[in-house]
């Protein structure tokens, strides 16, 4: 199965460990991953405020690139990229006139989009395309000792009209996955489907750190060993700004490591933890993992 892979700026430039581990894990699962190297930025939430048609066109170009290599689906490990690409899909896959306009612009770079591509994120790829039997076979090291707090991130589950895969206010896909595929324990805590505040980090930092603190404090008080997120941006916010967020609220709370979903899957599949890039995390999960026998 050939999957086009679009890591997004965050995983490509800042959280490069997510990029590396995602490839490693999916290669072991027998998926042919082809990276769209010349894809570029999807426009994020910032360009949407400048000019929405630019974001749609950039998205359309990425979809065209994925179509060109005859991929079955387009995988991204960033939730906001998924949102932007899905917005483009909602316009171009249904509306022939809009697609004709897009192709007019894309013809400048000799590309063409036929409206057949679909975007998928990592949890759904593992659940829908790889499936229960293959995942159980691949699981070498059950995660039964880990108490995991899943953090979904906003744009992977909302808006529901783009996804419709699970309840957008009470998501469960990662919980089910961890419990059924890897025998892990997942926790219910407030803020599971809340926001990490990434998109205001540059402009209203205090709002963002407040939100990061909210998630961290709730996960810690629920007794979690680690937070797991499928989104590279959420990881950057929760991991990099964690110390700052906790300091602002008195600094009494303890730090909690934040893992990428791909890293957790890698751990369960028995990949050595030295290969996962844990040394690049601001809050190192090494001690926690050693204590749990990894």
């Amino acid at each position, binding site marked *: 199965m050939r999957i086009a892979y679009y890591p997004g*700026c965050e995983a*490509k*430039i*800042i*959280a*490069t460990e997510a990029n590396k581990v995602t490839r490693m894990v999916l290669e072991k699962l027998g998926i042919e991953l082809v990276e769209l*190297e*010349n*894809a*570029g*930025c999807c*426009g*994020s*939430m*910032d*360009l*949407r*405020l*400048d*000019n929405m*048609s*630019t974001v749609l*066109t*950039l998205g359309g*170009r990425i979809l065209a690139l994925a179509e060109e290599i005859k991929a079955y689906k387009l995988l991204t490990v960033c939730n906001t990229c998924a949102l932007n690409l899905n917005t483009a899909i909602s316009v171009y896959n249904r509306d022939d006139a809009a697609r004709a306009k897009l192709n007019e*612009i*894309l013809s*400048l*770079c000799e*590309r063409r989009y036929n409206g057949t591509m679909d975007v998928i994120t990592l949890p759904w790829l593992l659940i829908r395309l790889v499936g229960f039997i293959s995942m159980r076979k691949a699981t070498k090291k059950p995660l039964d000792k880990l108490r995991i707090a899943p953090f979904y991130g*906003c*744009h992977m589950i*909302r*808006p*529901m009209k783009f996804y419709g895969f699970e309840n*957008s*206010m*009470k998501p469960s896909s990662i919980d089910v996955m961890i419990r059924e595929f890897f025998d892990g324990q997942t926790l219910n805590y*407030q803020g599971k489907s*809340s*926001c990490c*505040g*990434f*998109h*205001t980090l*540059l*402009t*209203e930092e*205090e*709002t*963002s750190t*407040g*939100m990061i603190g*909210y998630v961290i404090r709730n996960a810690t008080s629920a007794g979690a060993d680690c937070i797991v997120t499928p989104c590279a941006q959420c990881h950057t916010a929760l991991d*990099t700004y964690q110390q*700052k967020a906790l300091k602002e609220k008195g600094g009494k709370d303890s730090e909690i490591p934040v893992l990428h979903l791909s890293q957790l899957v890698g751990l369960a599949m028995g990949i050595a933890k030295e290969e996962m890039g844990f*040394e*690049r*995390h*601001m809050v190192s999960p090494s001690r926690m993992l050693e204590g749990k026998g990894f």
Partner: protein
Amino acid sequence: MELGEMVEVKLFRFDPTIDQQPRYETYKVPYQSKMRILGALRYIADELGVEFAFRDYCGINRCGCCGVKVNGVPMLACWEPAQPKMVIEPLDNFKHIKDILVDRDEFDAMIERLNPRLVRRKVYPGFPEEITHEEMLSTFKLLDCIECGLCTSACPAVREVGLEVFSGPAAYVKLAMRALDPRDEGERTRTIVDNGVFHCVSCLNCTEVCPQGIDVFQDAIEPMKRIAVSQKAYKGHQAFNAVKETIKEYGDVNPLVLIKKVRGIWAIKDLGLAVKLGLKGKLTISQSANPGLSEINRTIEATEVKK
């Protein structure tokens, strides 16, 4: 659920004049055909004879006063089906009066603060005024707002900064309804910025909980932000330009260049964090441009001409 099966309702009870702490009381309600959450609440009040405070009026998703939080998600009690197990609590981000009844005064004041009415300076051309569907397209759906306040209650930004700083999504729906109206001549830019729309973190909770199906984020909040950014009224507007500039320069976002452009000399405040990130290898000084840069620039330029 089957007829006569028991619905388990765990109800939030708190009377500030008597109680020290809020408590939860559990009631069993027999399921009736097509039962809504409000049906269960009414049963508890009428049939079980429990005295507790809640608000309801129309029962058909029109008056917007029966909002409650059920199993952690804000919803209209009159509109959502009863679930086998329900924890019913008052809405977040509102002051609690008693039990599941909330104080709407502050919420209403926030809407009022944004002055959401048509401002017309020119002489009224007489009736009927010609407005096409196309002109009203951006406001059409927003007119469905029933001011139930579910979006404001679900908003994490309001939770963090309070209604005083950020008036909440509901107030911006009311504002957008007028500001995007082709007949409106009001000066809205300052109102938009001063009421804190840029605290919005784009989490789309508001869109999801709306009982009227309004895309609150995409149809109301984003257009409002867009107006403020295009007028350069917001102090952080250079952040949005800087993202575009880095994309034009590198094809991807370059975090180091981006922070330098946004913060200017004040980037020095984040030096500690930047050094830590640099040591972890998360920031690279020499980021190479994306191989598709020229194509990306061509697409961006093509859309700019059309703007």
